[in-house]
């Protein structure tokens, strides 16, 4: 290789991409998630996007919903905690707990898109208002224990997301519901928390606590038989007696109002097990996110919940077919090799000589027919090329790591369908961005 001549053979020789060769075996057998097939099928009624926090669930849910609507379905998307600008682009400027139609979508295929943001406290309040007479409802809403529970219990958000899903479903106004899930550390929380809250509110402890309030002197009698007094006594000590009293009056008000919080939770849970529901596990190609995705995938299988596949979000792929080693060696050569030294010498000798030559004069330097670049320009061009080659090498290393992690996940979940969404340089915050991310991959 001499001078500035392009050695095209060199490109090919140097570019046998070991990384893609390694991963090819695994990826050949990976089933591609047929997203359009899933979204188009009239049998698909609910799509639940789940996964650990920070993997892009909300964006994925919004992008799927938009895609389905523009392909002709009547869709509502329930988001939990969208980024502000994404929320605005969906027209979610106020948090009013009602679906609003999204403007600016392509309706030529007859589809519509509604979007809403979950307000968990309001959803809880609405359950109370719907099921109790006004006086009792007011009592409950004013109860400090209720206020804390509805605003901050770690599982309330999950429970209310389930509740809202059940409500949207029973309204029957949409033929597809896409649900985002709360941003918990563990994806399993979405499935477990409602059951926990439901069983607590409908459970043994609550009955014990409500017993004194309901039947007066019975508490003392039960003390002899079931240790109830021990329990309330100990709870009173820990919580303070006024807190216990508030819990008791909350429970009493709730109990006569609607039996079966657990029943409600169970009904929604069953809805998730029906044929029309499809779970999509969202993960980034990172160890923590894939581990959570793995737990969740197993759990869905155990509970016989239908898994459509894995969405692997924020995937990095090298654009050029050059190995990291080759790219780094080339960058090194450009910075410290013979060519760089020669360029440095040249620019030292003829300082300013070529300064007047714009890059335009030196176009297509490779074919040697036109005047060469000035030494200074040549050095700058080499620097630029070296920087980009190093960037490329980094990308290759990252991609190699992502493939390794993904390959491990796929090996332990054979047969799972997968859809890869590329990492974006910028955050997505408008409909075009949502459209494009799917268009590039589906």
């Amino acid at each position, binding site marked *: *290789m001499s001078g*500035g*001549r*392009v*050695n095209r053979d*060199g490109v090919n020789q*140097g570019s046998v991409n070991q990384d893609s060769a390694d991963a090819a075996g695994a990826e050949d057998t990976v089933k591609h998630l047929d997203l359009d097939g899933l979204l188009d099928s009239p049998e698909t009624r609910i799509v639940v996007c789940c996964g650990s926090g*920070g993997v892009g669930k909300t964006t994925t849910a919004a992008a799927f919903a938009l895609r389905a609507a523009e392909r002709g379905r009547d869709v509502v998307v329930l988001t939990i905690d969208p*980024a*502000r*600008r994404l929320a605005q682009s969906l027209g979610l400027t106020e948090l009013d707990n009602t679906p609003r139609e999204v403007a600016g979508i392509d309706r030529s295929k007859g589809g519509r898109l509604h979007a809403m943001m979950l307000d968990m406290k309001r959803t809880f309040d609405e359950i109370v208002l719907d099921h109790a007479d006004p006086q009792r409802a007011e009592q409950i809403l004013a109860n400090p224990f209720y206020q804390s529970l509805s605003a901050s219990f770690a599982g309330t958000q999950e429970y209310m997301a389930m509740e809202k899903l059940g409500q949207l479903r029973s309204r029957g106004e949409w033929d597809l519901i896409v649900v985002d899930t709360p*941003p918990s*550390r*563990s994806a399993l929380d979405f499935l477990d928390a409602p059951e*926990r*809250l439901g069983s607590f509110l409908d*459970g*043994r402890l609550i009955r014990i606590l409500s017993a004194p309030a309901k039947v007066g002197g019975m508490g003392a009698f039960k003390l002899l038989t079931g*240790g109830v007094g*021990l*329990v309330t006594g*100990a*709870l009173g*000590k*820990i*919580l*303070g007696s*006024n*807190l216990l009293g508030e819990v008791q009056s909350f429970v009493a008000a709730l109990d006569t109002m609607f039996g079966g919080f657990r029943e409600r939770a169970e009904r929604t849970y069953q809805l998730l097990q029906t044929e029309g529901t499809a779970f999509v596990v969202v993960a*980034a190609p990172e*160890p923590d*996110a894939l581990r959570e995705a793995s737990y969740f995938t197993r759990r869905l299988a155990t509970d016989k919940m239908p898994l459509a596949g894995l969405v692997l979000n924020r995937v990095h792929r*090298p*654009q*050029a*077919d*050059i190995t990291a080693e080759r790219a780094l060696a*080339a960058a090194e*050569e*450009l910075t410290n090799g013979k060519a760089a030294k020669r360029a440095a010498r040249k620019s030292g000798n003829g300082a300013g000589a070529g300064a007047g030559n714009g*890059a335009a004069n030196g176009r297509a330097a*490779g074919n040697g027919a036109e005047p060469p*670049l000035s030494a200074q320009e040549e050095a*700058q*061009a*080499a620097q*630029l*090329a070296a*920087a980009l*080659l*190093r*960037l*490329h090498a980094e*990308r290759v*290393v990252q991609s190699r*790591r992502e493939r390794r992690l993904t390959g491990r996940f796929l090996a332990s979940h054979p047969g799972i369908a997968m859809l890869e969404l590329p990492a974006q*340089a*910028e*955050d997505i*915050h408008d409909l075009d961005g949502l459209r494009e991310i799917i268009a590039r991959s589906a």
Partner: protein
Amino acid sequence: MPVTNAAEARRAKPDWPAVRLHVVTGKGGTGKTTVAGALALALAAGGKRPGDRRVLLVEVEGRQGLAQLFDAEPVAYEERRVAVTPDGGEVWAQSLDAEQALLEYLDMFYKLGPAARALRRFGAIDFATTIAPGIRDVLLTGKTCEAVRRRASHTHSGHGHGSHGHDRSQQAGDRVFDYDAVVMDAPPTGRITRFLNVNSEVSGLARVGPIRNQADAVMRVLTSAQTAVHFVTLLEEMPVQETLDGFAELREAGLPAGGVIVNQARPVVLPEDRLKKAAQPGGLDPAELEAGLAPVGLADPEVVEALSELATEHAQRVLLEAGQREELSATEAPIYELPLLTDGVDRVGLDQLAGQLRRQGAA
């Protein structure tokens, strides 16, 4: 150890000399646990002799993130050593569990033998630790504050701390506290103020009584100059927005805000004048790139196109990050930056991050 000395020589003056409880929060996916681990290593470094410095790393969400981070066996409720710095500083770890903390607490104050069993049988422990709002948080923060205040010479009869597994009294010497610092891998940004502000959380519920007393004791530590709450973020819109909101909430609640730790910052590889051009698709002159690649035999149109695309992506990302960095300055907090480790975080990577935190004065 020449390497350590060289690193120490470059070290900035620490920004938080008085802080003994470092609470590390961050939006999900920002690397909060990794940063907490690196910070613990950074705080444990710099002792004169091995064992001089000792830091406790506490996790409160029970996901065994610390064990995975240090590639150690599962971390239990008991404190256990998980790492030693090159200069002999020790990092201990503990996975806090609200239920165990409650039982320990009940045992300590009430000697509830049979009642504790009954409580458990009727789901009362589960109720108190997972459902009753605020109580779980009081227990977890309470247990952490206990570790912060624990004196080196103190014997923990009946506290369940008998099994530390090493003889501290020998090393205690001039040591005042059991741990020089405690680092908490805390709940995410969206929940951090509520989590730490146990006082207001239980105030509506427990106006008097033991929970209330415990909450008051916790708040004395958390609102003091001994505590700082650090926010881990990426230079992306949503985590940055959450960081700004988190700072505002924290300050409003009178809790001590610490620094911003920017994680996974990308190095800028293009000079500034190139960045703006490159940010436009096709903004770089392909002829120039081709000329640059020619000496190494890579002046192939496909390579040129691929690298131009990469340059555009990089430039857009850098400009976006610059904008987000600007936004973060509104916190008026010290900002530290940790590089993206493209090959994943292992112990070597953690040490590298810890070194960065020390050099920049975070520890």
